[in-house]
């Protein structure tokens, strides 16, 4: 409780001044320039007289094909850049709208004229953090989905720290190009495919269906949130665990009571099973009980089968 009060104080001292500082910065920033309206459309032929390099490359893009045979809204240079007569007359770059130099909101407004579906996700975090549609897409490009880079490499251009996590010993095979960031993340916002997203774990369960249950014997954190135990990007511990066993298990559970037993020193065999045995040490029980809990609690995500003991059927050992 004392800690809580301490941190609420911390919040007051840190968060609110930061907020007001940020507001002050914004108020001191120059206002948005008004766009000129005294200009008219000139047509693609006029544009391509100077910008001839786009004639071939743009013709291969999905935007160019949308312009053929009167299908869809016709896409021309001025569909995105706006009317170009003033720019044609003056030759000044400033006299025409250039989405690449616009901010994320202006870009989105331009793209959403046709891609209205993305309007629904307007305001998602990428819109604020990134420079807008152009940060990921090149409108004049021939590439698939007009992307600057293909696959997850595009995401890693900004999310370098996440790229590093995928280099951890246990990871989803993203760097190996076997799955992609967009298999889990919707970069334009919205829910993931095949996931109803009624709980935090739904996204993981779209692929890991075998962990879904419902099981007769449950492990409560599995129902709660997969990220209690797993880091989906990568981890130094096996199976994407946020900590190695047994330390992760010990975050909630006590050590097994057999841990404190002293072991005999030397070779042994089990009296009732002479074929079983080995070399025992004084700390043998610590090694056995303090290394990996899932060697015995094998069905840690849940099971329909009771354990051997009548008193603890839900021990998740079967």
């Amino acid at each position: 409780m004392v800690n809580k009060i301490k941190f609420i104080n911390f919040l007051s001292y840190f968060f609110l001044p930061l907020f007001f500082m940020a507001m002050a910065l914004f108020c001191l920033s120059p206002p948005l320039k008004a766009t000129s309206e005294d200009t008219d459309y000139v047509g693609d032929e006029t544009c391509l007289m100077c910008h001839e390099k786009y004639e071939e490359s743009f013709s291969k893009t999905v935007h160019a094909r949308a312009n053929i045979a009167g299908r869809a809204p016709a896409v021309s240079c001025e569909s995105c850049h706006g009317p170009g007569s003033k720019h044609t007359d003056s030759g000044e770059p400033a006299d025409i709208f250039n989405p690449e130099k616009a901010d994320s909101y202006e870009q989105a407004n331009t793209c959403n004229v046709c891609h209205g579906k993305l309007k629904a996700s307007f305001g998602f975090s990428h819109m604020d953090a990134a420079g807008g549609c152009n940060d990921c897409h090149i409108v004049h490009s021939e590439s698939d989905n007009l992307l600057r880079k293909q696959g997850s490499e595009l995401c890693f251009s900004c999310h370098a720290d996440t790229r590093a996590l995928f280099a951890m010993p246990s990871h989803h095979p993203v760097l190996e190009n076997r799955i992609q960031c967009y298999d889990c993340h919707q970069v334009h916002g919205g829910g993931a495919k095949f996931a109803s997203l009624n709980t935090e774990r739904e996204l993981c369960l779209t692929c890991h269906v075998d962990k879904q249950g419902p099981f007769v014997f449950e492990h409560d954190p599995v129902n709660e949130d997969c990220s209690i135990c797993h880091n989906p990007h990568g981890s130094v511990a096996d199976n994407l665990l946020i900590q190695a066993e047994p330390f992760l298990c010990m975050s909630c559970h006590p050590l097994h009571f057999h841990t404190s037993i002293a072991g005999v020193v030397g070779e042994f065999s089990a009296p009732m099973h002479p074929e079983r045995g080995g070399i025992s040490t004084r700390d043998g029980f610590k090694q056995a009980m303090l290394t990996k809990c899932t060697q015995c609690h094998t069905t840690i995500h849940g099971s329909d089968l009771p354990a051997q003991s009548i008193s603890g059927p839900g021990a998740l050992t079967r």
Partner: protein
Amino acid sequence: MSINKLKFIIAISISSVFVFITTSAGQVEAPDRSTTFRIGGHYTALNDYYKKAGEFYLGQEDPFPEFGIDLFSSNNSGNLIFSGDYFDKKNMFGRLKFSTSDNVKGSVSYRSFFRNHGTDLLENLVVRETTNPDANTPGGKMVTHEDTAAEADYGYTRHEIDSNIEFKIPLDEKHALKLMAAHRLIIHKGTEQKLAIMHCSSCHIKSQQVDVDRETNNISLDAQTKFDEIELGYGIDYSHFDSDVKIPEVFYDTVQHPVNGGALEEFDSRTNYGGEDVSFDREPEIEKISHRVNLKIPAGKGYLAGAFIASSVKNKWNNLQAKSNGGLLKYNVRFSSKVRLIANLRINRIKNDEVLIDMPLWREGLLGGGQDLDYTRYSNLTRTVLAGDANLKYRLNRYNNLSLQIGYERVQRDDYPDYNFKNKTSKIYSELKFKYRLSKSSTLRAKYRFTNIDNPFTIFNQLLEARGNGTTSPLPDNSAVYYFQRDDLRYGNAANQPALKHHLDLSVDFKPIKRLSLNGGVKYTLEQNGDLDTFDYERTTLTPNLSFNLAGGPRWSFFGGGSLLKQTANAPAAFAMFDG
């Protein structure tokens, strides 16, 4: 599913696409085509025990070639894009995308990779108790292990076929009905190491090699339409999982005293099974179905979007079912060119079936025995979730923007940790985020998020044990108690979930020249829980990173970066002392 069946599905899918394209595309003009070949390779040098480090094979000790091809074909009737990579027969990728007109488009993709599961050598599982360490006297408790497939290499190949198609059916000049269908098939095929423990003769862990043949099917059908500014949609998702292998079995030892083989009646009265083959680690058949309805309408200067989702998931082996009903509401309004508000509200109810666990009486017919250990398994999945947030975005100019978010989430669990306990977790969070242009070539991004959680998820009464032996013993004139009685004496709560969380994220982009960008940043997270009755939990995560991106031309770029992750966490090491 056999691999031949898989190949058949791929062949049929790809052939169907080609047939569809060639029959529906009117050849008006010669197609525009381009082809790109890619050749490369990977090599990974590994030392010592590599089976886990090489979780996904990529040139492990041997050079690993890679071949790729990209095909692009387009004319005025549509386009066809194929992209493929071949590494070896267990690792490949191919995707075909097509559109025959503005009204039909779709794709089929196949990918596979091999996941090396690693082998647990079980070498730590060998010990026998000593009842007198000074005299090195052997006791009865022991741990042993046995590996019936010591030389096995475990792993499986994951195959995935993903197909989707979209039709746009014109209703009139302005309106259309969009129909979408998607199917995803995931197959795991290989072998896994399965462990079974028997612990009532000697504590013995037995390892077996077990086949893996899992199949997951996801099917999704959607219909969407738009009338002026009103959008309406319905979707249904179906998911099915099953394993097509024989359920593994293991012979459980006859329960008996581990040293003299006696006390058969005593051991038998404490166990569910023994001296027989018993199945274990069964993966049940699971079926899930979800219905989605969504509606979007204009509201003032913004729009209001709502969705209702109802789903049910069933374990078909025992007919256990979890049902969920939820609604989402989103209001997105633009007050001016500079200010926008996005507000979300989510309500969700999940009900998981309860199960009566019917157990034999404990030590039936024996002195101090006869306890009825039947119980009802309630589930912490049964819950009502209420969540809402408001995000105010302020944009002063094209370079600088700021957003402030506040949110609240309440999770009320009906029956956790026991019936009608009504455990409630409440979370309040706020986030300040801004992007600020420091100069023409540099931009600062900053984010601070504060989360306060009241009663975070905790596994109750796991640590520490109250005194009580003298009063709870079932045996007359005896202080001995059973383990399940000692479990009831535990009182300490522990968790790795924070009650307070601070997250700070700072980054600076610097673009000294047009084609070079540098990025540096740091993330810091502090999580604390001082509300536990056992210890104060704390976890800190610090991640500084630095990267650069040199875009040399339209067809090549060079990227490099480094990131450091430092995480520290504390937790108690609570020993339950054996026999007190």
